[in-house]
């Protein structure tokens, strides 16, 4: 849909010659797409008081697929980012006799305004400054589950939210021996949205079999969902490809219906990114 929007924006005629040329240039730039795929492993710490009163700690495995490109919005200063983040966690309780499995997928679509005429998509080739930064909004949706392998009527917990987020991107082009090493940092804060939560002592049988809904869709805001996502990467050019290494911190927290939840993960990521030019 974003591509259609972009093409339609490109298709609109401009009156002045300058604007027409700028538009043509932007359309060409907008066809430049940054694809990045990363996989990582790290530390996980999950608390979900619907299931257990205590933290479960272990390993987080994460895969991220990111696509970025410039758009024609706001005179071509807006970058678009789509991000798919998938994670699986395998944790144990303090005494390591009970296992917990968690997993989820988040999809986000964001638009970021580039300051000072910068370009956070391809700053090495398209920007005149070493330092570039952009801020903007993104919309995201998350679906996940947390499962603890002990029997009972509360063995699992579903997680879901639809959020509007605010965030920022910053890049720094570090040149060493004529090679460009690009540092990229992104931070995202969930702002407002809706989330699913069972009520404090509600069973899933009650909610889904007898349809006794009780405060199961809650309004989320930083007061009851103080969360943030950080991502720091370094792009290292290797011949035609670019190796990307980085660190991802996902700090997700909520306090819905007097149920505490946190999922802290810190992953070291590795992957490749590539600039493609669409026809």
């Amino acid at each position, binding site marked *: 849909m974003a591509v259609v929007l972009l093409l339609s924006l490109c298709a609109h005629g401009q009156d002045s010659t300058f604007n027409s040329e700028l538009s043509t240039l932007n359309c060409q730039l907008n066809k430049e797409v940054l694809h990045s795929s990363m996989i990582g492993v790290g530390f996980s710490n999950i608390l979900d008081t619907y299931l257990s009163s205590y933290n479960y700690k272990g390993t987080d495995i994460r895969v991220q697929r990111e696509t970025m490109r410039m758009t024609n919005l706001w005179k071509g200063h807006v970058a678009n980012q789509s991000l798919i983040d998938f994670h699986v966690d395998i944790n144990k*309780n303090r005494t390591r006799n009970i296992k917990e499995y968690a997993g989820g997928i988040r999809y986000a679509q964001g638009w970021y305004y580039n300051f000072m005429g910068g370009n956070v998509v391809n700053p090495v080739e398209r920007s005149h400054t070493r330092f570039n930064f952009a801020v903007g909004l993104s919309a995201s949706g998350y679906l996940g589950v947390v499962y603890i392998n002990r029997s009972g009527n509360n*063995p699992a917990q579903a997680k879901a939210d639809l959020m509007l987020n605010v965030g920022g991107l910053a890049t720094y082009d570090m040149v060493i021996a004529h090679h460009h090493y690009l540092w990229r940092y992104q931070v995202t804060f969930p702002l407002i949205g809706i989330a699913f939560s069972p009520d404090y002592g509600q069973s899933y*049988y009650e909610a889904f079999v007898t349809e006794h809904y009780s405060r199961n869709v809650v309004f989320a805001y930083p007061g009851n969902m103080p969360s943030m996502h950080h991502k720091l990467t370094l792009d290292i050019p290797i011949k035609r490809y670019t190796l990307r290494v980085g660190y991802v911190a996902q700090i997700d927290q909520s306090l819905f219906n007097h149920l505490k939840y946190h999922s802290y993960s810190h992953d070291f990521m590795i992957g490749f990114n590539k600039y493609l030019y669409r026809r």
Partner: protein
Amino acid sequence: MKKALLLLAFSFSLFTFTSCVKEDYYDNSKQGNYEALWRIMNEHYCFFDYKKQELGVDWDEIHARYAYKINESMTNAQLFEVLCNMLAELQDGHVNLSAPFDFGRNWSFYEDYPENYNDSIAKLYLGHNYQIASGLKYIILDDNIGYVRCESFESGIGDGNVSVMLQNMASCKGLIIDVRGNGGGQLDKARTLASHFTNERLLVGYVSHKTDKGRSDFSSPKAEYLDPASDGIRWQKPVVVLTNRAVYSAANDFVKCIKLCPNVTIMGDKTGGGSGMPFNRELPNGWTVRYSAVVYFDKDMHHTEFGIEPDIPLSFSGADLAQKKDTYIEQARTFLGNKSHL
């Protein structure tokens, strides 16, 4: 502008870090585990008000009384015993403490009463040619009365299983459903079986769950209905359900529901109860505690936590036992035989 944005990002970060959602930490010590268990029950157990009214249970007084017995030099077995004794005050079969070496329980709901069931004798009625429909053992007795032995609701009883069974006994003049000793299982399976004995939607009770940590914080009761089975056969002839004190949890709910169905008579002893849906949690030392978390009432908003009275009370007869006869089954056969002559 840049400074303002950096300030905004810094503020968000600071807010998030200072708003950490943390666990309520307890040491893995004897005292820590004791306090953790008391608190889990205090914040999640659903029958404090009812148990205070019926048994005089004062959870704060219990804390003070048992805290005195905890010390760090005691063994794990001693700690387990003290914790189980504390939980036993609630007289709830759904309250258990599981450790690698033992399973703490209070099963006085049936252990303190006559069993009114003899497995060896009951098996004589089934013989060797009985059929099994997803855990339901059934046979047609000599006097053309169908006998169904339902030992548990753990197995996946479905409309198809029940319908085939009822089809096979369609010529019977009555049906005995023997749930004695049935300790429960899946609530929806119990209701699936009950749904084949009504032609109308029935109000069977109300459900309420906790909404916060307070002992009286509950959601408004929500009505629960038993819908007639939409698939398969619905039984229209007389039915006797045999109960004893070991009928518990989902089986207790089955009795609560089927008692409201037409043509159904409950015969035997009072059921064991267990009307709370149990949840599980663990202690800092890894032991697991199970507790009643969601309250199920009957249609008059009465608790069935301590059981359901039968329509016709029965006791085992020594003379019948001597003749290897099951008093309950014999009485049910007589009752159904008389009904068929009316």
